[in-house]
């Protein structure tokens, strides 16, 4: 039987600081939206984001606290510029609003998706925001890692998220197990 402590150790040192869900905030960039809606990207990453969002929704259904998830409005603007018509679809807007906060970084300035994510993370860090800021992205290399800002791919955060929200809190209900098995059974390879 593997203990939660063993699992946390297996995640690596960089993840230890934010295993506590109350100390973490997530920012999603446009690569995550594209992976989620269009299944665009590496299969492991796509399935990980499917699983992650399904888990978030199941936790919200159970009225559990979930880390704040922020999406800058410029991320959506960038998707629209790329011709992604779903951005203006009511079903999509309702879906995003179910689990994420849409933030405008600066009403007088238009950023690319990546710039807006970096800008938001930097602003939060400069303002003394006490939580660890996890940028969820398929393009990890375009963000600068700092003590407070940690860019991660979905597969890397998925296990941590489960630990933070489900196993550690004994919340791995039958429904959550089903969600986990639905998507995780299809994922092969490591969690890097």
């Amino acid at each position, binding site marked *: 039987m593997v203990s939660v402590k063993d699992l946390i150790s297996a995640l690596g040192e960089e993840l230890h600081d934010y295993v506590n869900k109350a100390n973490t905030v997530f920012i999603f960039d446009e690569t995550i939206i594209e992976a989620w*809606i269009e299944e665009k990207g590496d299969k492991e990453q796509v399935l990980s984001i499917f699983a992650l969002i399904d888990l978030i929704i*199941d936790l*919200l259904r159970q009225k559990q*606290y979930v880390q*704040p998830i922020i999406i800058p*409005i410029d991320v959506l603007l960038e998707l629209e*510029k790329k011709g992604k018509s779903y951005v203006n679809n009511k079903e999509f807007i309702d*879906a995003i609003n*179910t689990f994420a906060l849409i933030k405008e970084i600066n009403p007088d300035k238009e950023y690319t998706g990546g710039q807006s994510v970096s800008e938001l993370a930097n602003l939060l860090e400069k303002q003394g925001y006490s939580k660890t800021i996890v940028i969820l992205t398929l393009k990890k290399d375009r963000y600068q890692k700092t003590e407070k800002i940690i860019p991660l791919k979905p597969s890397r955060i998925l296990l941590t998220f489960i630990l933070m929200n489900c196993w550690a809190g004994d919340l791995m209900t039958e429904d959550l197990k089903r*969600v986990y098995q639905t998507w995780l059974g299809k994922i092969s390879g490591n969690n890097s």
Partner: protein
Amino acid sequence: MAKLNKEKWLSSNTFEFEKTDGEFVAIKSETGSDLTLRKEIMPDGSFTKYIHGKLKKKS
């Protein structure tokens, strides 16, 4: 210039950030409630499969 209606997006989400005791927290501006209050949660089952199905019907 992008055509996305920012107001449509931003007004449909009532959450705002406010600074409290040196820390930013997300609150629901209408009520002052914290993040545990969310908009309507979608039907049971896989949310991802649900939204994929909805968007396919529209395309």
